[in-house]
């Protein structure tokens, strides 16, 4: 491609944006709104994921050990558990510790438990955290089969609910995001189509003057990309500032929720939006023009 033509493309694109300032602003607006919706739902999914992750990490398996197990056997068992790949944390709670904990739970009424020190009925216990919540159930079953294990408890009910909830949130988030992405593409395609439609005569005339398809397409393509770029930058700016100020206010009132503020996670999202803006702009104008180039 000659430098001539590239220069021509740029001049035409900028001029057209300027002269159709009204139409240009509308297109930028649509791109911005669509990408804003898309970006927001992406961040929402990121956050929900991190929240679900945080909740998951709190689910523990309690492994009660048979009364006659020797300390050596316990040691050996602990090492065995630590070597299992799906286990992220193993904590040993001795009979005595367990009783202390129980007393604490009873609070004012701990006198009920007095006299139990001599003949402590509580077992030694391993508290195990798993790498992922899906692993809780299979691991629990596996551990139950070990010889020294008396019983395994893991709040079956809570875990099942959490697993279901996590799956549901991820599914819903994914579905919502896909819907929004489709909606965004559809909206932008519609807008670029309308704007090309509003200029169909112009495109036709260019062809009648002997312009090749690429020559006609070039400025429109560049124009679409510029508009997409501007729209996405707008969306990214709104999301960026809006998100961090929102996170700021939420953090104060809602310490237990782990909001994602790691730039390493958020920046790719924003960069992706800008790239998407460029692609959408270019694709929109190319596809929309096809019909009118057939003269």
């Amino acid at each position: 491609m000659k430098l001539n033509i590239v220069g021509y493309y740029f001049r035409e694109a900028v001029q057209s944006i300027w002269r159709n300032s009204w139409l240009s602003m509308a297109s930028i607006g649509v791109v911005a709104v669509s990408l804003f919706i898309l970006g927001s739902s992406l961040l929402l999914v990121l956050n929900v994921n991190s929240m679900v992750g945080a909740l998951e990490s709190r689910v523990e398996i309690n492994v009660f050990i048979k009364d006659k197990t020797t300390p050596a056997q316990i040691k050996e068992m602990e090492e065995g558990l630590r070597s299992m790949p799906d286990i992220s944390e193993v904590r040993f709670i001795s009979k005595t510790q367990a009783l202390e904990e129980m007393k604490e739970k009873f609070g004012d009424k701990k006198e009920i438990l007095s006299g139990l020190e001599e003949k402590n009925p509580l077992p030694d216990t391993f508290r195990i955290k798993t790498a992922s919540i899906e692993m809780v159930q299979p691991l629990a079953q596996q551990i139950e089969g070990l010889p020294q294990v008396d019983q395994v408890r893991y709040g079956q009910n809570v875990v099942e609910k959490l697993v279901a909830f996590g799956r549901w949130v991820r599914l819903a988030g994914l579905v919502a995001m896909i819907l929004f992405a489709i909606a965004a593409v559809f909206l932008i395609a519609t807008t670029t189509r309308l704007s090309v439609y509003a200029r169909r005569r112009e495109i036709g005339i260019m062809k009648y003057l002997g312009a090749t398809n690429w020559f006609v397409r070039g400025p429109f393509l560049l124009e679409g990309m510029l508009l997409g770029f501007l729209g996405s930058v707008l969306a990214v700016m709104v999301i960026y500032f809006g998100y961090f100020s929102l996170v700021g206010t939420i953090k104060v009132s809602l310490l237990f929720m782990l909001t994602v503020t790691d730039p390493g996670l958020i920046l790719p999202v924003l960069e992706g939006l800008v790239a998407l803006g460029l692609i959408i702009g270019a694709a929109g104008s190319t596809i929309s023009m096809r019909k009118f180039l057939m003269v």
Partner: protein
Amino acid sequence: MIHLYNVTKIYPNGVKALSDVTLSIRKGEFVFLVGPSGAGKTTLVRLIFREELPTRGQVIFNGKNVGRMRMVEVPYLRRRIGMVFQDFRLLPQKTVFENVAFALEVAGSGRRDIRKRVPVILNMVGLAGKAGMYPAQLSGGEQQRVCVARAIVNNPVLIIADEPTGNLDPETSWELMKLLMDINRRGTTVIMATHAWDIVNAMKKRVLALTGGRLIRDEEQGAYCYEA
């Protein structure tokens, strides 16, 4: 240069605009195309320009069958033809200068070339002072002359002018005719569809007469007349 063999054009809505037209135009000729309103003059030049495809028959331009041309070749055909459209077809978002320059840009001319050539042409059609205006800010006759300027700026091998004097006063019309004759003298073929009987009669050039889609007369040094 141009040959039409048994060309018939039926529009999709069933109107038969041309029926069985056969004619040849040699390089360097100056040809008037006359006929009543709706006779098929515009349709005929559209076929040469490949704005429409013939329903039957062949249109040959410089040895190439225009109707069978591949899409990618069409732009190069059109660049070699300077067309003055009956309905003007100016780009509304471009100034007069840019409209004329566009024909050059399409063909890949450099900016320096464009800046030199366009003012000369605008001067020729008497629009030197209107270069910066948009088509909507021009009178009918001025718009028509912008079309003429755009058609000739590219030094085409063929100029097709579809009623180029319809909105012009007699004086300006004659200036335009002199311009076309000048260009014709330098070897460019000119086809002009017109209703201006006075001009046709005065010029004594070849006249093709259409009526109801049929070619009914073809006279060298003819006069304006479309009775069989």
